[in-house]
């Protein structure tokens, strides 16, 4: 099911041992080449790729909800991989500080929906420009160049502004801990950095999840819609929501019936605070001289000396 990405991955892992020294930056390079479809000699040169270019095309996952059978293997594997209690009981409706990835169970009477049931995997959407990361005053939440939005324990001060800001409500706090963490899907950033796939994708036996560069996922999603126009809703959730997310969804029925927020901004969420933040240097540089000017202009009888009350 993995399209051309798998072949380039294979060639990458083959070429991997050749450049072990570049392990920490290896992913960036590999990713860059995968995107460009270049192999070989230009390695050293292209290693200088700026991070911004990587951000333009981060890793992501395409979720085809028509393929998901609701086996919840991904939930269990995710819990194991992140050291969390393995979920038991029925389908959840939201993620929690104990469960970063869930399978939702939605009933639908849409004729396009097979068997009248849709299973939807939900987790952090890994926005292209995440609200949480822009809200974070310690940069504890941060968008890594390869796409995963990760949380860094040593920086977070637990203000929970990320939770207020996230349009998908994905960051969850451990309220019952004296040393609470912010819990959310990290797209298995460590594995991705090693050139592996996230555990949920790897464990999915139903081919519902496809891991790859976002641009290719978008293409693939459009292709699937074009090939089966009667199966899918003609919309890729995540393509433009919140300015674009790394997780993309295909579905056989309208997304609002599957619990997806439909009225989200098409612009990025950080842009909502941009005007205000632009105003800050303006106020800080223009208001003080203005106040000093007013103070001087309104000084009774224009005392010649400077300072409040004149000088002593």
């Amino acid at each position, binding site marked *: 099911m993995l399209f051309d990405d798998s072949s380039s991955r294979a060639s990458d892992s083959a070429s991997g041992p050749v450049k072990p020294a570049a392990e920490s930056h290896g992913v960036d390079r590999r990713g860059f080449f995968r995107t460009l479809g270049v192999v070989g000699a230009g390695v050293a040169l292209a290693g200088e790729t700026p991070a911004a270019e990587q951000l333009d095309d981060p890793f992501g996952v395409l979720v085809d909800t028509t393929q998901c059978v609701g086996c919840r293997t991904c939930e269990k594997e995710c819990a194991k991989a992140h050291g969390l209690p393995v979920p038991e009981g029925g389908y959840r409706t939201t993620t929690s500080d104990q469960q970063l990835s869930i399978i939702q169970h939605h009933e639908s009477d849409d004729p396009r929906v097979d068997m009248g049931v849709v299973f939807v995997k939900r987790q952090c959407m890994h926005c292209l420009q995440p609200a949480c990361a822009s809200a974070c005053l310690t940069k504890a939440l941060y968008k890594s160049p390869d796409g995963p939005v990760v949380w860094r324990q040593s920086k977070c001060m637990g203000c929970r502004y990320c939770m207020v800001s996230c349009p998908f409500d994905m960051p969850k706090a451990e309220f019952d801990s004296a*040393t609470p963490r912010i819990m959310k899907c990290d797209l298995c950033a460590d594995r991705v950095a090693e050139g592996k796939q996230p555990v949920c994708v790897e464990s999915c036996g139903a081919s519902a999840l496809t891991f790859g560069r976002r641009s290719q996922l978008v293409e693939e999603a459009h292709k699937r819609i074009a090939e089966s126009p009667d199966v899918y809703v003609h919309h890729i959730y995540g393509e433009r929501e919140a300015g674009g997310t790394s997780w993309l969804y295909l579905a056989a029925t309208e997304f609002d019936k599957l619990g997806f927020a439909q009225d989200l901004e098409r612009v990025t969420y950080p842009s909502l605070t941009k005007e205000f933040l632009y105003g800050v240097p303006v106020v800080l540089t223009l208001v003080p001289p203005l106040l000093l000017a007013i103070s001087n202009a309104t000084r009774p009888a224009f005392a010649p000396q400077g300072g409040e009350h004149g000088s002593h």
Partner: protein
Amino acid sequence: MEATSSISWKAEAKRTLQFLRSELRPRGKIWTPFNVISGAIILAGAIILAFRFFYGLGAVTNLNQDYPWGIWKAFNVVTGVAFAGGAYVLVFLVYVLHQEQYRPIVRVTILNGFLAYVFYAGALLLELGRPWNVINPVIGNSFGFSSVLFLVAWHFMLYMIAQFVEFSPAIAEWLGWKRIHRVLHGMTLGAVVFGISLSILHQSGLGALFLMAKDKIHPLWYSEFIPIQFLVSSVFAGLAMVIFEGTLSRSVFKTRVSPSYHFSHERIVLSLSRICAGAMFVYLFLQTLIFVHGQDWKHLSGFWGAWYGVEIVGFVAVPCVLFTLAYRRRNTSLARWAAVGAMLGIVLNRLNVSLIAYKIGAPVRYVPTWMELVVALSVILAEVWVFRWIVNRLPVLGEAPAWTHEAEEASKEVIPHARPAAVQPIERSVASKEA
């Protein structure tokens, strides 16, 4: 030369220490009803906070994944800072516009503002999940420049310093440090100008915190103009607080109040009422523009429309009219009622934005636990205790010591035709009476 100066420094230090020791002793009766009740609440608050730090926020609060911020943030920080806005408005009037008639209340207002920030920033620390990392955005190993909260946090810190500088001459007067007093006094205007700029930014910044919560706040309370709404409303929130607090202080601290404060109080309340009425009118106009521009008519039906009406009409428009009437009819008790109404309106507005009209569809609505309320109250009571301690010792409500007075008189000689002729004779007559 050096020897004599070191001796005088030694003597000075000794004198200051002795003075401080004598000042530390409590004054007045200890077992008053207020002390007993507030002391019990503060003690209970401290115990609850111990639980909070040992077992996590969940042990004492009703915070959940839908409501990451509770009453400590919404009431103590977001609302409390609006009420502390009186300090920047008053220093603007006195130090920038030279409106000397407000001089008698400027110090107590700065003190109030300063303590409000100290205690409310403290409340912010209580509600941080990982408070030991609070140092990260301060020392610069992790600056989140794109964060509104980063800006608010830094401006809180800087503004506290600015306010401390604004207030510091009172400390120098209390300790009798004449030379330091002169230096501190000279820094006042700088601190004032810096402080006003910071206030404009963090008062609006508290509103800007909610800009990214666009899908979570009811449209009647969310607009891209929240920062401006918060800034404008902080003007009358702060002044209403000044009127309210001044009325209390005048009766509680009778013995500490200077005659000039006493004489001018009524007149100050009435002119502040006028400013409040103006600011509230501007605010109402702004709200109307935002309402019309946002095409919010469709939201007016149902409970939330009515609730919005209660806030805007009942607690903004009505106090605005009352302030106007109070000023026109020279009725100070009406002004006080208007101040109470305006303050309730601010509480309502801030809680609506941050809690009540926030995520109205959440499966579990947030309602604070009694423990959260006790802590919220303890923060305020602890502030009142510190305020009382300072007012009872420092020249806050009363006259500055004679030696500063002489200096000021001397400086006034430089300005022969000072404008506030109405106030000066009173001050002079008071001074002569005391002499």
